[in-house]
């Protein structure tokens, strides 16, 4: 008797909390997998991660793109003062939220492996999940480790493959990058047969293959990320290969036409034809506006003091004007403000800002240019000029980039001019590993781990496996 009731007991004790869905119920249908993936993208879009800190906020302050003189954390960040408690709190939050999001991805992958369901959408979901795991880990490495190309054996980091409470395994940085590439290979394979069409205006729900597919980690974003990763590893051949693959997708992506209106359209979100991947979020208008337009806010950010020099505006002519200066900045009598994402209160009220771009086409041209420079100068220059031309500039004078040194110096500034507000400039400074000036335009900072490597959270060092 007891035995019989005991068997019943198994079900009797399986209780479902209301307002919450137990894991096995969540993944009992395909929609559950989709919701879980939407949850991952939404987690990435929070201000703790790509909604602010890892784009126009904290990371662009550390990257000396913007400056602030009143907020403790931004002042500390611009000084690379990683002992400052508030700066550390930001570093800790970014670390924790990145791994928390990775854990979410891991649980989707785990349940995909376990599920008995089948769906034509599982390949694309699986591909995106592997790609996101690689994407998030890659940014962790670029924040919390020494540059992979310059210091190949400098750091160790945990690479998370599972959704559980066990400590994650620690990898040397080369193994860690191997893991990223392995995940990207998986992603590439799963997404290989997916057909995306940016020109298909159909509105569809997740997973999206029509025009909004760039809001999700699509096949081209995987190639672009591979280009980024190989570039960061110093693997020119592969970097070039994948950058070229993206650029060759002419039906999907193209540099903007040489007009202010076209550029204004292309550099934002959804940034049709230039954006390869970006996060969709419609609740950031006020936050971004406060950061760049409302001087009374503590988080108010000003562009670099040497902004005009950087854009070389004295050299502007009728045929050689950097449209990015006009599209990204607004000059007034007293100050110049960054208006790339949002510019007026009216736009805030309309909810103009629909998202933030994370991977864009110009970067592919830069990667192509840099990886070709040593082997094919003409092609390298052509890649850079392609971007310059679409921005209203004349081709670069060959003599000014005659040496690799000069070329790289130009690339640092070019990346700054193009990618302000995207959180990419810090990574560039780190990768080029050269002395640079701070956002005040005067102080020079020597490259070092003390500047380029975020501190690991104390709890990670104390409770994790990092020292084992």
């Amino acid at each position: 008797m007891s035995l019989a009731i005991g068997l019943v007991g198994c079900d009797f004790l399986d209780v479902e909390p209301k307002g919450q869905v137990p894991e096995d119920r969540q993944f009992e249908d395909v929609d559950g997998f989709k919701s879980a993936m939407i949850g991952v993208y939404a987690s990435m879009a929070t201000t703790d991660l790509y909604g602010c800190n890892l784009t126009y906020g904290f990371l662009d302050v550390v990257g000396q793109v913007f400056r602030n003189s009143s907020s403790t954390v931004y002042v500390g960040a611009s000084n690379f003062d990683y002992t400052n408690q508030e700066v550390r709190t930001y570093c800790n939050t970014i670390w924790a939220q990145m791994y928390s999001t990775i854990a979410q991805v891991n649980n989707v992958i785990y349940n995909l492996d376990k599920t008995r369901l089948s769906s034509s959408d599982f390949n694309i979901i699986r591909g995106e999940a592997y790609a996101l795991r690689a994407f998030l880990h890659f940014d962790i490495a670029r924040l919390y480790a020494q540059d992979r190309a310059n210091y190949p054996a400098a750091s160790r980091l945990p690479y998370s493959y599972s959704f559980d409470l066990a400590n994650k395994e620690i990898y040397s940085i080369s193994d860690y990058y191997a893991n990223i590439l392995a995940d990207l290979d998986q992603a590439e394979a799963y997404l290989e047969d997916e057909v995306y069409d940016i020109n298909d205006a159909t509105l569809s729900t997740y997973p999206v293959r029509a025009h909004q597919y760039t809001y999700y980690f699509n096949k081209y974003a995987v190639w672009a990320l591979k280009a980024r990763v190989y570039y960061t590893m110093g693997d020119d051949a592969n970097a070039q290969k994948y950058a070229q693959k993206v650029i060759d997708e002419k039906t999907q992506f193209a540099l903007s036409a040489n007009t202010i209106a076209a550029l204004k359209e292309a550099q934002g979100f959804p940034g049709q034809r230039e954006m390869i991947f970006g996060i969709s979020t419609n609740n950031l208008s006020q936050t971004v506006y406060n950061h760049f337009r409302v001087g009374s806010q503590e988080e108010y950010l000003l562009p670099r003091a040497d902004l005009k020099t950087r854009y070389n505006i004295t050299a502007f002519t009728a045929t050689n004007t950097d449209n990015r200066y006009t599209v990204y900045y607004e000059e007034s009598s007293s100050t110049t403000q960054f208006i790339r994402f949002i510019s007026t209160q009216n736009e805030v009220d309309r909810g103009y800002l629909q998202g933030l771009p994370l991977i864009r086409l110009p970067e592919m041209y830069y990667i192509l240019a840099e990886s070709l420079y040593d082997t094919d100068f003409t092609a390298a220059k052509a890649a850079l000029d392609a971007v310059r031309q679409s921005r209203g500039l004349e081709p670069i004078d060959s003599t000014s980039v005659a040496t690799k040194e000069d070329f790289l110096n130009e690339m640092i500034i070019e990346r700054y001019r193009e990618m302000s507000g995207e959180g990419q400039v810090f990574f560039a400074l780190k990768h080029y590993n050269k002395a640079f000036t701070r956002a005040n335009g005067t102080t020079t900072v020597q490259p070092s781990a003390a500047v380029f490597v975020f501190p690991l959270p104390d709890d990670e060092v104390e409770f994790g496996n990092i020292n084992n």
Partner: protein
Amino acid sequence: MKKLLLFLGMLVTCALSAQRGYQGVVTLKGNELLVGVTVTLKGSDKNVIAGTMTDENGFYKIDVPQRGKVTLSFSYVGFITKDIQLNDNSPRTLNVVLEEDLQALEDIVVTGIVPKAKNSFTGSYTSVSSEQLLSVGTKDVITSLSNFVPGFQILENNSIGSNPNAMQEINIRGRSSFEGSSSMPLFIVDGAQVTVDYIYDMDINNISSATVLKDASASALYGARAAAGVVVITTKAPEKGKLRFNYNVTTRISAPDLTEYRLLNSAEKLEYERLAGLYTTSSTDYSQQYELDVLYAQRSALVAQGVNTDWISKPLRTGVSHNHNFSFEGGDDNARYSVALRYGNEAGVMKDSGRDRLGGIFKLSYRKENSFFLSNTMTLTSVKSTESPYGSFSNYVIQNPYDTPSDEFGALRTVLSYNKENPLYEASLGSFNKSEQFYFMNTLDANIWLTSDLRLDAAFSITKQKDDADIFVSPLSYTQRAYTLTQRGSYTQTNTKQLNFTGRLMLSLNKYLTDHIFMTTTLGMNGDSNDSQSMTYRTVGFYSNKLDYPSFAAGYATGQPSGSDAVARGLGYFVNGNFIYDDKYFVDLIFRYEGSSKFGENQRYAPFGSLGGGWNVHHENFMKNVDIQNLKLRFSGGYLGNINFSPYQAITTYRYSNALIYNGMVGAAPITIGNPDLKWERTLSTNLGFDLTALKRKFELSFDVYRKLTDNLLLDVTKAPSVGVTQATENIGSIENRGVELQARYIILNNKDWTWSVSANYSYNKSKIKSISDVLKAQNEANNNNTTSVAPLPIYEEGQSMTAVKLVPSAGIDPGTGQEVFIRRDGTYTFTYDVNDKRIMGDSSPYGYGTLGTYATYKNWQLSASLGYSFGASVYNTTLATRVEGSDPKNNADERVFNSRWKQPGDVTQYRDIAITSIPSQSTRFLETENYLTLRSLSVGYQFDTNWLRKIKLQRATVELLTNDLFYLSSIKRERGLDYPFARSVEMSLRVSF
């Protein structure tokens, strides 16, 4: 026990007369004299004619005023009542032998699951009858119970005082959790689990007995829920007989106890303000000083006029409460019924606070001898509680006596001196806070005797509870001024529902295995399910305080409605074996295998169990000639569990949320990473004790020593954030409680007219923290460094007591400067307070606490008293810290502010400079040893003469006058009842049966 009934009649000739008498000796089994046996003489119509008791020599003598057939009835607690039919020719000397009643209630331990024989019970427990409970008060079971049960502690809460709507925290044998709620014992009424509120709202008149199960052997049948002890309450079962009515009425008068409030009068208060420098300014703007001078002159004038408002009396009243309990019962040997109806209205000492209870219990039972027994109990209770609109009592304590509540036209002032809001004005605005509870409980019990040895028990109960709480804040309230007109005033309604099912199935076999070994075994299983839901919504914007209903609001408050919905289920299988050899040696084994939905898949089931043993020494041959009637040695040990925490911590759950909207779609994210390895908190409980009855049953003593080691306590631990979460719940904590309990009673007098006994109990518990998590350590660090809290916050250190008090030692007040001198760790003196100098300076757990009681009867009169005591606790006196030292001179304060504080250089005082108003540092100056003695109850009762009662058609009538908390003597002078004052009460009860 199959003992032979011995009946010895001795024939002695006696003269025949109209007035005949009987006399004789009453013994146990023919050898031990029984003292205090009740002897009643009944006529042929079964009505009582006369009564007496056996004296110290077991001798009785009774006169029979009439001729014809009579019955003499001999009754004694724990013995089978013997009725002897007599006629005119019966011998006049009648020696009687009584036999122990092994089936009597007093010899059965009520465990709520299996009734167990007392003589082979290995556990530690205390059982209290309803008469005992009533003898110390009628307010509620819990308060009455605490007078009798060592180790049962109601934690004193100085804030809530005697608020009739506030629930107290109860611990049995110490706290075994870092959170308060999971140290609450399990409450069982008629076999069903109930909440503490349910117990609190029960009428003692309906209770038959309350039993507190304390150790593993006593409570292991409850397994995972029993770690904090079990309180088992049984309600009165219907008795057979013709229809009988009972009516009990109690009227109670309660008055606030303000003896510990020693406030300044208006003249003293003004002088204190002057000394504290409120009327001097260092500003060079002389107009400011002039304004202060004018203010001082105005207030002096008020003082001179004799204005001295007694603020603390304003929100108080003398509460008159009453309780009516009407019941009737009846039936025959087979079918019985009873109905009890109750209405009680408890009035608090703060104006308009109270708790009304209305309830009914309906019982039906049917018994077929040696075949089956069926009983159903249905209980309905409705409780209405109202909080006083006068708010917190502390708001009145701080008001200045030179302020008057009303202006010269009699209108209440809105603002008083120093811009303080007038709490009396607030009280007049129509705000309220009230709630209604409704309980329904039905328990069905069935016992079926399959053979004479084998019995099948089934029980099923259903409990439904519904709470509705309503809070209305008047739009005119001071707190509402910050809002716009359409947002002022709010009405918050919280609805809570709970539904419980409990079912149990048991098979019991009671059998002699051999001539010597008697075996009782029980095999059973049980299941329970608990659904609870709560929902809160709030509306705002009321245009008048008279429109106090949600539908009159301007709209809903912003934000989401809040609420929760939880389901918990449990399933258990158990086996209990009890073996007794020759009534001397016994062992008791319990094994329980239990599952709960609160745990992860990997640890869903856990085993619990206990092993106990004992020795009835008094049954040994060598004890034959010793004056010891009972000596039982017993020990027990076993594992108990605790599942008193929120469910679902073990499972990963996804939540959909509007924070997870992405591109127009709603996403789901895991709330946390579940821990499927989460194990049950468990307590290893060991107990050693003995029970002694000696000196011709005049002396009784029970002694217990115990150790409870709770481990696997669920605590938050820090995780490496790369795991994906920064904190997780794990089985980390461990707490040990050790203690001693003692209970004694001595009958000083017991004769025809008099009985007098004294009793005492004593409890001591010491806790020790064995291990805690890093998150808790970090919390300790924060608590330790906190300088804004008046009293030191709890600090949990491994190896230390749960209730250790950590303070900086103080060397007193420097007479030169009026500042405090602290002693550093190295022994040097300093003016600088440093939290790192804190050391453990005391423990707020007492060395011992308990009750002293006495009970006396003289003829129909009875007197009982119960004194509570406690000694040796180190208490941080917050009155000194906030009302003497840290007092704000703008508020009224304790008179010691004026008398004992430093005023000028050279003053040797206990307290700092009168001008300092900051919160004093947490130092030993405020640590005092608390010893207290309180008269919990004193009662006088009178039982009306049965002969006289018969004339007015009553069967039984008693009247009782009882007072609670008449005095409280303490070594510490501190304000008691901060938010709600303590009360003293006097009550009168009348109990009649007809």
